[in-house]
């Protein structure tokens, strides 16, 4: 299995699959890139998504999907190399730079990405967006976290509950 990215492909041209977003936009990408998604991988291995049919993704809109695919295309070569034993430091630095740039986005886009990464089970993207959100709330007080993430203000009951929790149980990190 010298070329895992081409699956059962045979000739030089990489196999392409078609993905259809919730608003019916069609995206044609290399199977290797789409296979970063655990959800899609099985379908693709079964030979789905090729030719005219395409794989419908009712939970992902076209804006989000194009963003997700941008990530997948960038990361597919490294992933195909299986953890990239022969990747150079330059390659890794380039990917890191790309990742940092990639999540430098509006918060609503970030949420859509979290949902998409979750639904499509793209592990690398899941960690990337989670890390971004973790960085956003790191060092903030509970109230600041709520504001940062756009949660509504707590009700007095909820606030009382939280205060009571703090004092009744303490909350050492055990």
């Amino acid at each position, binding site marked *: 299995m010298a070329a895992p990215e081409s699956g059962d492909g045979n000739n030089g041209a990489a196999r392409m699959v078609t993905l259809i977003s919730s608003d019916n936009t069609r995206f044609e990408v290399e199977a290797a890139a789409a296979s970063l998604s655990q959800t899609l991988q099985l379908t693709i291995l079964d030979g789905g998504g090729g030719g005219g049919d395409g794989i419908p993704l009712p939970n992902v809109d076209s804006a989000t999907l194009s963003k997700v695919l941008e990530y997948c295309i960038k990361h597919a070569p490294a992933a195909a190399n299986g953890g990239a034993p022969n990747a150079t430091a330059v390659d890794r630095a380039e990917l890191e730079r790309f990742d940092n740039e990639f999540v430098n986005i509006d918060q609503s886009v970030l949420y859509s990405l979290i949902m998409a990464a979750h639904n499509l089970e793209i592990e690398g993207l899941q960690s990337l967006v989670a890390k971004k959100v*973790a960085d956003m709330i790191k060092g*903030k007080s*509970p109230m600041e976290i709520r504001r940062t993430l*756009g949660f509504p203000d707590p009700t007095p009951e909820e606030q009382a509950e939280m205060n009571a929790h703090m004092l009744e149980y303490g909350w050492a990190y055990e």
Partner: protein
Amino acid sequence: MDSTLPTASGDPVDSEDTPMVHSSGDPHDTDNEASASAPPDLPDAAIYNILIRLPPSCVTRSKLTCKDWLSMISHRSFKRGHRATWSHLPPATGVLLFDGSARYPATVLDESGSPRLSLRRWGAEPKDGYTVQYCCGPLACLRTGHGNAQLLHPATGRSLVLGGGSRRGHPSTWTGADTLPWYCLGRCAATHRYKVVRLDVRLPFGRAPHMTCDVLTVGRDSWDAASGRFHARWEEVGPWDGKFFPTGRGVQVAGVVYYLSWFVPGVCVVISFDLHTHRSYPIRPPGTDADLVASPPMSLVELDGRLCVSQVGGGGAEMRVYALGDEAQPGAVREWTLMYRFELEGNARAQDAGEARGRLALLPRRR
């Protein structure tokens, strides 16, 4: 004037005595507070992924963000996963609290060792400062310059004013009276509630000392659910036995607060105050002669969950530390065991052994 001072947002602020809490700037703070997009209804797995990436000092703090986060972070499987993720870091960093006149009497260090949160005083007057009274579990009990008790959760910077500063009885002629009342924080062994014991002493001129003891229970029912506000209810405990004159803030061990008290000048006894029954009993300290005519200088300290007494003997040449044994049966005399013996240089005082001059350290708990 105090009410105009900034406080940490979202704290249960109940009065003017709230300490100012500073979260040191976060490099990632560039992200706006304004973009309040629609509240995300993220799946649990996604939230788990986020929270597992928060460093230990933050994850504790973020528990109080909402109920869902609280239950997730409190869950055993999360704790395991989080510990595994962050196992490359040294165990949770301690919290140092200092007494006295420092500009920043309390500082919390995070994993990298840099101060993350400082509790500071805002005036030059001693009455604007805080004195650390006692630390128990994750909470510290402070005494404000106005004499009120205040609970502080150093890891989060949240604080709660408990009041208790108003004093009853005759005015005192004693010069040490401005360090009163004394507060001690403990956790009731039976109900697991945190309780604060307030002890006040008045020495009216020409009269017998007047001592009062009150207890405040901090629990779920102290919160008014409708307003989310805290109601401090101090409960008066019967008169303190006038024979025993407490000398300090007390030391709490396993739901019992111990006070070193003068019995007669030159003779000390230990008074135990049970946080559950609110009863107090005298305990004869070690090394005191049977007729209670003299006792060496001593101080109380908690070591490894036991009450210890350190005494200086031999004319200041050695220090002995005794631990108080368990009650073999109800009412039985509790024995002291000699734990350590140190040789001292010069004339060190017992005071330096335990509470190193009012300085306490909260050390990280081991798993």
